[in-house]
């Protein structure tokens, strides 16, 4: 049994479904200096372990919303409360991780060392290496552990970035349009990979994307953000694994696109 499978089996039995963080936003507002409000009086509750997709046009405030939830920005008004569910992982520092639109790998560190960046300081070197290799195995890049990032393709680099975000077993994973720069087929494979790992580990996932079909394929719940407020909040009741081309998904996608595009007409 490989190291990764061993890790997964042991954790599946120990990890309840609500191992993620629950998020509550009350009256959240954010205005940047000299501009109009980017987020206006937003109220939201995300239960632990849910996969939420946030869609909207460029500039509608979805990335800002993500950064406010993660604590990267201070709200101008309102509150962000993030707390653990019944089985949340320990270690406040490692609880929230983000995956950016660009891979943002350190070019001067090998792949395994880049993944280890996600582990923080407390862990010893040997343990760090073991965990990094285990999670690289999960994303299918175990044989590239000793490579320089410059030798990898775009999709492979994003997979390393995903491994870096996951290596510390976060309770909340934020994904800020992570697959936008990839070709369509790699994107579909990565979506399947993220979904599989989410099902295994049970963290809360928030995916910001402008691709409605991606949102519909991956999420439990879709929020449409328009001008800083939530315009639509729909649940995706289609069971997993989901097939593209499923009529229920297509209908939902159509509904959301109508809402997104109809507004500007």
């Amino acid at each position, binding site marked *: 049994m490989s190291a990764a499978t061993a890790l997964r089996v042991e954790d599946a039995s120990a990890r309840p479904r609500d191992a993620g963080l629950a998020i509550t936003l009350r009256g959240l507002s954010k205005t940047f200096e000299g501009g109009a409000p980017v987020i206006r009086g937003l109220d939201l509750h995300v239960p632990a372990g849910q996969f939420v997709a946030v869609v909207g046009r460029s500039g509608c405030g979805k990335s800002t919303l993500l950064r406010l939830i*993660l604590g990267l920005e201070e709200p101008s008004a309102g509150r962000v409360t993030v707390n653990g569910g019944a089985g949340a992982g320990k270690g406040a520092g490692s609880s929230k991780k983000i995956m950016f639109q660009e891979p943002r790998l350190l070019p*001067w560190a090998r792949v395994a060392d880049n993944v280890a*960046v996600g582990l923080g300081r407390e862990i010893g070197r040997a343990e760090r290496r073991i965990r990094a290799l285990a999670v690289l195995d999960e994303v299918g890049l175990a044989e590239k552990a000793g490579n320089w990032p*410059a030798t990898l*393709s775009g999709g492979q680099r994003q997979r390393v970035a995903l491994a*870096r975000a996951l290596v510390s077993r976060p309770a909340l994973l934020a994904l800020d349009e992570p697959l936008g720069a990839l070709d369509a087929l790699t994107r*579909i*494979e990565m979506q399947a990979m993220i979904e*599989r790992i989410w099902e295994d580990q049970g963290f809360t996932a928030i995916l910001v994307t402008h691709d409605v079909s991606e949102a519909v394929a991956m999420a439990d719940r879709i929020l449409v953000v328009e001008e800083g407020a939530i315009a639509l909040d729909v649940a995706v009741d289609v069971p997993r*694994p989901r097939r593209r081309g499923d009529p229920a998904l297509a209908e939902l996608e159509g509904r959301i696109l109508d809402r997104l595009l109809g507004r500007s007409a």
Partner: protein
Amino acid sequence: MADSAAIRSLPGRANRAEAAAPLPRKPLHVPLRLPLRLPIGRLLPWLLPSLVIVGWQAAASFGLVSTRFMPAPLDVAAAGWRLAQTGELWENLWVSFARAASGFLIGGGIGLFFGLANGLSNLSEKLTDTTLQMVRNVPHLSLIPLVILWFGIDEGAKLFLVALGVFFPIYANTLHGIRSVDPQLIEMGRVYGMNRRELFWRVVLPGALPSIFVGIRYALGIMWLTLIVAETISANSGLGYMAMQAREFMLVDVVVLAILIYAALGKLADSLTRALERTCLAWNPAYRNT
């Protein structure tokens, strides 16, 4: 999950891993194919210089050129051998090298310090950058008369000049390197919990290193130039002094020897830096093939 499996079974896409791997690089030039078994590619660059030297020696031997003005290569080699035997060559070589190295370390060290300080701290930059830029506009070699007045013609004068010449390229390139570290990487580091010390050692300094090496290469050139001029004008030891003395006594072959040694030392310093670059910057595809 169902989609992945479907993709993998598409015709013509049997192995996605292969498809995702980067293409191997093709060499830009066509390799030579000659019937001889000699390593022609390696020898060709040396053909022209060899012809020049042989021609030069022939011209001198047959009396076509007066050896008063241009010594024959064999004479230069003989002079080199003679000086090596008496130990004069090694002594002067060591003195010149020590001067160059100390001046480089002092000037480079100060340049590196200010480059890092001004790159990392806005306050430091506001306080010192303009002054340093003003100092740079004074060509350091023009200060020689002043330096002789202050320091005399002993070691201090030469060290000061070399340090001054070396300072600015290293300062400017270090500053530029620090300032142009990818801000996205810094944000990533912060978000992933790196403190200021870790950010500096793991993100900022390695990111600035290519620029710092550019500064070092440039500063090495200035170091040699400054050393040669300083030794020619005011010295009582070193290669420049050896060349000046030879000129007094019309020993042209020693003069040419000194020039060749300077050139060789310059090349050596550059090669050492290149080797260092290749080790420290191995991650950068641009440096892989130098």
